[in-house]
Each structure stands twice: as structure tokens, then as C-alpha cells.
């Protein structure tokens, strides 16, 4: 006769331990300053940039960009001197007066026209042509205001690289303004005065480009506030829908008590894995969401294997108690639980170590999550089924 390990012997202690563990994780998260939402869910800008200048470090960048209140984190191979710079929307797009704006930047020629208009409200633009390249314009403008002259127009547009010339027709106050917007920074990449994208990103790049030569922007992301909210809501909705549907299936294929066990253990996994991200200060973005969904899938899979065995053992109608049935089922599936767990952990460990920067956080959360998922199948899902059964038969 095979030995049955009494997994449920300490179930009350383990129950307390689980809640203490969750509480500790949550307290630690609060001590760290709460959850870090990635720009995917709250909106904002994210730049990955590498610097040729070896004097650059996290602190230096933070000081340089302090107006944007960024989080700066060095990533990847240290010799590359590469950083992730993230700003949340509410701080990145504040203008000089500190008013938050999510407005889009104007297109370059519009920006110039706006500037002229602010000084000479009665100006009319006769003709605007693209110059030789995309970033230069030839604007013909008529001024009602007689005080406008070559010098004053040039002065009004001092922020831009312009030449002003009075047109041949001397009877009207008409000027031809040649504007070139390209401000080649030292790396050769273009940092321009404004585009229709969110302003904050352009300002960030401009600030970096002006200070350092040899800045390489590896990637840049902007997520608008509406999209962030939309993604956040749809993530919640999807997770809940998935859990409910899985519970219904469990209730249909097994019994209701299994459905309760599965749901509780899944919620347990959710709370712990999210709290884990909080403790580790892992930014909660789409990639982490994918990791969480993956581990919920793994956990429920693991749980069902045990449930399936409980159901099967229970059908044998032996005289043993339901608690012993559960113990027996867990024992019988133990070798499978360990084998599958270890192989999956191994694959994730490799991903964590050599999978590259992009998969680093993903693998890290998964590594922790697989352990939790396996643990919850044995120590959360199964005891809950037992408790439910006891409560019902009372």
C-alpha cells in the first residue's frame, strides 16, 4: 500500500500563513509607494535611450529632466549605457504655467503662423509652399499693420530659423518668410519644434538632445490618457470574464464545490501576483498583464489535474473521509506536479537569464507565479473544496 501524505494536516496554519503573506506583500508595496502603473494603463511617455557619454547615469538624467518628473532606470548591458525614461502623462505635459495639458503639438508651419498671428492679428497668409525639403516652408504673408517690417517679423519669429524678405510689390506690406525647421542635433537625428504627436515626448527628446551629443533613441512610446483607461478597463473586464466562464465550466464538468475552490485559488493567485509586482516595483504594463494571464492559465490547469483525481478517487466509494480522498489525490499527482513544475520553471529560468531585456520582467513574474500557482492548487484550492463540503453537509 502506498503512503499517503497528509497535505491537509496543517491547512488552518497554512490558511493563516497565506493571509499573513498577502498582508506582508501589500504592506511592503505600500511602503514602497504603492503600485507602479506602466504607461500602457495610465498614459504617458517612455523612451529607451543609450548615451555615448560615459558620465551619464540615472541621477544625471533625473536632474536634467526634473521638470518632467521621470523615472529613470538603467537596463541591459552596462557598456551600452542604456536607460528607460518614463514619465506619466500628468507631469509630462505640463506647460510652463504648470497647467496639465494633453493637447497635441501643432504642426510646424501652423506653429509659426500662430506665432505671427499672436503678434499681428490682422496678418493674412497669401501663400504657403513646401520648400526643397519637407522641413522648410516659403510663406507669403500680408500685414495690415504698417509697423511690421523685416526686422520686426524676424524678431517675432526668433525661435525659428527664418529669413524675411519684402516682396517685389512695394504698394502692399507683403513679406516672404523662408523658414527651415530642421534643427539637426549633434547625433544627426531630428529634433523639431513640434508635431501633432503629444508634446511631452518631443520636449523630452529635445531636452536630451540639447544636453548630450551621441544620444540614441532606441524606442519611444506614447499612450494617451483615454487609451490607458480603455486598456485598464478592458484588462479587468477580460480577467473577470475569463474567471467566471472557467468557474461555470468547472461547475458543469465537476461539481459546484470545485468551482468555488478553483475560483478562490485563482483570486488568491491574482492578489499575490499583483502584490508581488508591487513589492518588486515592477511596472504594471501589457507585458506583465500577459505574464499574469499566463500564470492564471497554468494555475487553473494545475488545480484541475488535482480536482480530476479527487473526483476519480471519490467515485471509488471507499470508506475513507473526504479529507483523506483529497490527500490521496494530491499524493498520487505529486510526481506529475513536481515534474511539470520543474520543467516549466527551468524554461522560465532560461528565459529570465538569457531571454533579453524585453522578456526580463515577464519571466521574473512568471517564475514567482508558477511557484504560487502550484502552491495554491494544493494549499488553497483543495482545502477550500473541503471546507465547502463540510459547510454544506453541516
Amino acid at each position, binding site marked *: 500500500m502506498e503512503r499517503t501524505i497528509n497535505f491537509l494536516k496543517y491547512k488552518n496554519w497554512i490558511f493563516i500563513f497565506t493571509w499573513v503573506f498577502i498582508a506582508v506583500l501589500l504592506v511592503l508595496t505600500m511602503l514602497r509607494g504603492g503600485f507602479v502603473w506602466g504607461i500602457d494603463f495610465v498614459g504617458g511617455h517612455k523612451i529607451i535611450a543609450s548615451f555615448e557619454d560615459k558620465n551619464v547615469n540615472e541621477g544625471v538624467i533625473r536632474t536634467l529632466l526634473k521638470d518632467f518628473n521621470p523615472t529613470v532606470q538603467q537596463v541591459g548591458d552596462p557598456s551600452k549605457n542604456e536607460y528607460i525614461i518614463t514619465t506619466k502623462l500628468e507631469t509630462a505635459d505640463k506647460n510652463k504655467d504648470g497647467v496639465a495639458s494633453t493637447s497635441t503639438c501643432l504642426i510646424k508651419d501652423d506653429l509659426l503662423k500662430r506665432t505671427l498671428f499672436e503678434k499681428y492679428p490682422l496678418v493674412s497668409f497669401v501663400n504657403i509652399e513646401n520648400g526643397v525639403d519637407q522641413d522648410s516652408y516659403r510663406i507669403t504673408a500680408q500685414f495690415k499693420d504698417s509697423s511690421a517690417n523685416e526686422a520686426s517679423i524676424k524678431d517675432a519669429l526668433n525661435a525659428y530659423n527664418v529669413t524675411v524678405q519684402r516682396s517685389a510689390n512695394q504698394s502692399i506690406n507683403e513679406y516672404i518668410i523662408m523658414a527651415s525647421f530642421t534643427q539637426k542635433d549633434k547625433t544627426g537625428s531630428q529634433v523639431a519644434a513640434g508635431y501633432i504627436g503629444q508634446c511631452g515626448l518631443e520636449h523630452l527628446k529635445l531636452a536630451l538632445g540639447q544636453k548630450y551629443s551621441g544620444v540614441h533613441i532606441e524606442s519611444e512610446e506614447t499612450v494617451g490618457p483615454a487609451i490607458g483607461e480603455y486598456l485598464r478597463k478592458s484588462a479587468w473586464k477580460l480577467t473577470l470574464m475569463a474567471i467566471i466562464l472557467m468557474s461555470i465550466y468547472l461547475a458543469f464538468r465537476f461539481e459546484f464545490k470545485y468551482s468555488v475552490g478553483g475560483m478562490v485559488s485563482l483570486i488568491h493567485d491574482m492578489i499575490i501576483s499583483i502584490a508581488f509586482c508591487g513589492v518588486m516595483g515592477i511596472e504594471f504594463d501589457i507585458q506583465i498583464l500577459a505574464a499574469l494571464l*499566463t500564470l492564471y492559465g497554468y494555475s487553473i490547469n494545475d488545480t484541475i489535474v488535482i480536482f480530476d483525481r479527487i473526483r476519480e478517487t471519490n467515485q471509488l466509494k471507499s470508506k475513507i473521509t473526504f479529507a483523506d480522498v483529497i490527500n490521496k489525490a494530491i499524493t498520487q499527482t505529486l510526481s506529475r506536479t513536481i515534474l511539470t513544475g520543474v520543467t*516549466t520553471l527551468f524554461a522560465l529560468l532560461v528565459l529570465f537569464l538569457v531571454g533579453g531585456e524585453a522578456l526580463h520582467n515577464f519571466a521574473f513574474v512568471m517564475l514567482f507565479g508558477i511557484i504560487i500557482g502550484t502552491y495554491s492548487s494544493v494549499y488553497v484550492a483543495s482545502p477550500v473544496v473541503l471546507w465547502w463540503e463540510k459547510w454544506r453537509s453541516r
Partner: protein
Amino acid sequence: MTKGMFYKTIFIIAIIALSVLLILPTVGTKKMEITLTDAATAGNIETIRKKFSEGGYKFTEKGKVLTVEGRNITDAIMNEMKTFDGVADAKILKHWVERVFLAKKINLGLDLQGGMYLSLQANFDGIEKKIGRTLTEADKTEITQQALELLRNRIDKFGVSEPSIRPRGNEAIEIQLPGVKDPAGVKKAIGTTGSLEYRLVDDKYTEAAAMWFKNNYKDKQISDDPEAQKTLLDEISKAVALPDTMEMLFFWERDKNTGVIKPLYPMALLKEIAVKGTDIKEATVDRDEMQQIVVAFKTTPEGASKFAQATAPENKGKKLAIVLDNKIRNAPHINETISSGAGNISGGFAYDEAMTLARIIKEGALPVDLKIVEERTVGPSLGQDSIEAGVKAFAIGLIGIFIFSLAYYKLGGLFADIGLILNIIFVLAILSLLGFTLTLPGIAGFLLSTAMAVDANVLIYERIKEELKKGKSIRIAIINGFDRAFWTIFDSNLTTLLAAFILFQYGTGPIKGFAVTLFVGIIVSMFVALYVTRFVYELISLNKKMKKLSL
């Protein structure tokens, strides 16, 4: 072996062969042809050669055409090549399997190959102000569709091949541009409002141009490159001695499958604008007395007289071109003078075509300005690093699992490993068939399904071992093992399948990618474990002399 088993063998072998064929375009070497300009220098060629010096590329040079062969050739690299000095064009040749079997290849997401992703929304607030009422959901959908049409019209300005422009829900538009070099330029091209105008076509010069085109450009495809198109138009204008009052432009048609518009043939137009886009107030799809689908339009009071002039009797029979951003999108014949300020454009339209035309006309009446609500640009080197590291990790992980299961299950482990390889081949084959775009979350889904494939084997083998311990014969142990494990695998996988289905149905972008690989992966792993592996073991159990099962 029974007859049934014989057919099963044939079936399994056929599926494997087909799958291997299907994944060839994805995993095999790809060929890229780089055409040099006449002015290309040896220095230019050297720069290109240098770019491909690492990573095991094969480089051949033949006159003005350079050919690069390698596994890692992506759309992003192709688009990057186009920006090199001395390069006229670059294109990835289709794998022979793609041509013969109409198979597709798995595309890499922008996070893996580098590029630009934009999500745009029409400025609904601005439009509401302009028309003085709140927009209904249907209005918003229609405005988004109109903006979509506008973006398709300027797709060439983005300067990339293989762009993707599609609506997301009914309020936003997603644009994916692999390997774009000038993100700022793209944003600028999107930001300008469209210019729509109606201009008369000159038949004489159009015929002359058509003749020239027929003689000199017969089967050749017009280049995607706007510069080359302009040069060609200039060349035609010169050849037909086009007067100064006219201009040569291309007529563009929309590809029904991809939605991308392509230049078809040149037409000569009067430079004078007959009717401005803003002169038309509205356009709808309607049916005429003959029940034919037509585009009905109404002009503004001011536009009515202009339209009457343009369609005056002396112009009867001529064509009036509808020009959006310097591209002729339609050129209906003038059948009668329209002086009432309302008219129809007929032309045997399918409903879709008529909708497109109505949207183009509306773009003149009510230009939609777009704002960027989401923007992601990944540099090509970062994308390249990601894919290399990902593939390396996947390979090491897989080898580890192989060794582990060999050590633990011996011969059984070998079968499990073969099953795992089949699993990967089948999944890739199905994703190829779907023309799937693989992103990082997609890889995550793939990984999870691989773990579940391993799990399925473990479940089966552990069951067989239990049965053997109970003293059952090898044959019975195998049958019982598979039978008992069947429902475990079925239930656990179906639950995950349900979740994957929800994510696929209601998720967006990256989450959808995760769901697809997970969904496909689970179905394949069930097929491999419960059908293919089982079949292998049934074959083994036929051997009555076997004393011990290697597990």
C-alpha cells in the same frame, strides 16, 4: 498492423509533411533583392555589404542587383535598405512555398523587428463644434471610416512597404509601419488635412499618355516610391508635350484584399480647379431609378453654379476627375448638366466602392483631423536584440527539457521529445496559415502551451507507471493510462481554452496575440498527445514479446 492503423500512419505522415512545408517560408532562409540606382558608387555597395557582414548572411552581387540571403531578413530591414544611399529599391522575394501553396509567413510584430505603431482618433469634439450637434455612434463609425480612407490615400507618404492600416473598434485607427526611419515625417503626413478638388480631364492628352504608357510601360508595375512616380509623370508629360495649363496625374485604385491603393495609369487634367472639395455639402450611397448603386451628392449654393459650369453642355462626355491629395480616385463621365445642386455618380459600383467614393467626397466637405492617441516606436537594433535573445532562450529551454525528459523517461522521453518537436512544427504551421503576427505576448502564449504539452506527456506517463505498478500488462497499462489521462488533459486544457477564447474575442492588440498562440498551442498539444503519441504507443504495444516498457 491493422488497416486502420495503416491509414492512421499515412494521415500522420501527411500532416507532418504539409506542416513542414508550410513553415519553410517562416523559418527557412529568405532572399532580398536590392536594386541599385545608376549613380550607386562602390562606397555605397561597401556600406550595404558591411550592414550584412555579421549574422551569416550570403551576399551576391550581379550588375545592379544585390542579393542577400539569410534567416533574419524582415520587412523592417527591407524598409531600412530603401533609405540607404545608392539603393533604388529593395524587396523580399517570395519563398517558393508561398507561391505554390499560397502559404503565408509568420510576420514579426513591431516589438520584435522594429518600427512604428500609431493609434489615431478623429477629433470628434472639433467636428461636433463644426456641425453643432453631438455625434451618434454611427456618425463616429462613419467619420473613422472616412479618416481610414484618407490615410490609405497617403500611405505612400509613410515611405514603407508592408504597412498595415486598420480600424480598431469603431473609434480608432491602428497603423503599423515596420522599420520606419523618419517617425516625425510620418506624423506630419498624417497631420495635414486632405485636399480634395474636381478637375476636368483632357481626353486628347490622356489618350496620348495612354499610348505612351502602353508602348513604354506595358507590363511594368509602377514603383511604390513617390519620387519615382513623379519622375515617371514628368517623363510622360514631356513625351506627349503636355501644355502648361495641364497636369499629368495617376489614377489610383484600391486593392480589394489589402485595402492599399496603387497607381494604375496616367491621366491629363486641367490645372484649373473646376469645383473645390468644400463646394460639396454631402455625399451618400443611394440607388437610382434603375436600382443601380450610385453616389448621390449635394452642393453648397455657391458650389451649384460652379458645378453647373463644369458640367455645361460643351463639357458633356468629358470626365470630371475627383482628385484627393494629388491622386485621381475616380473620374466619372459628365452625362448631363447639373444645375440643381444635386447629382448622382453612377458606374456599376459595388456597395463598398460606392462607400469609398462617398467618403472621399465627404473628406472635401468635412475634413477630418486626426490626433495621435498612442504611439510606439521601436528601433531596429532593439527589435533585433529582442528576437535573437528570445530565440536563444527558447532553444536552450527546449534542449534542457529534452535532456530532462530523456533522463527521466528514457525511451518514453524520446517519444515525448519528438512529440514536442511536432507540437512546435504544427503550431508554427497553423500560425503561418493564419498569416499571424508574432509579438512578445504571442511568444508568452506559445511558451505556456509548450509547458502544457510537456504536462500532457507527464500526465500520461505517470498514469501508465501507476497502472504498471498495479501489476497490469504493458498493453493494458498503455490503454488505461491514455484513457484515464484523456479526461484530465481534456478538462484542464478546455478550461484554459475558454480563457484564451475570451481573450481572443474581446482583447485588443497584444492580448489577442497571446490568446491566438495559446489557443492554437493547446489544441495542437491535445492532438499530439492524445492522437499521435497514443498511436505510437499503440504500435509499440503490438509487440507481444516486449517485457518491459522503457519509462
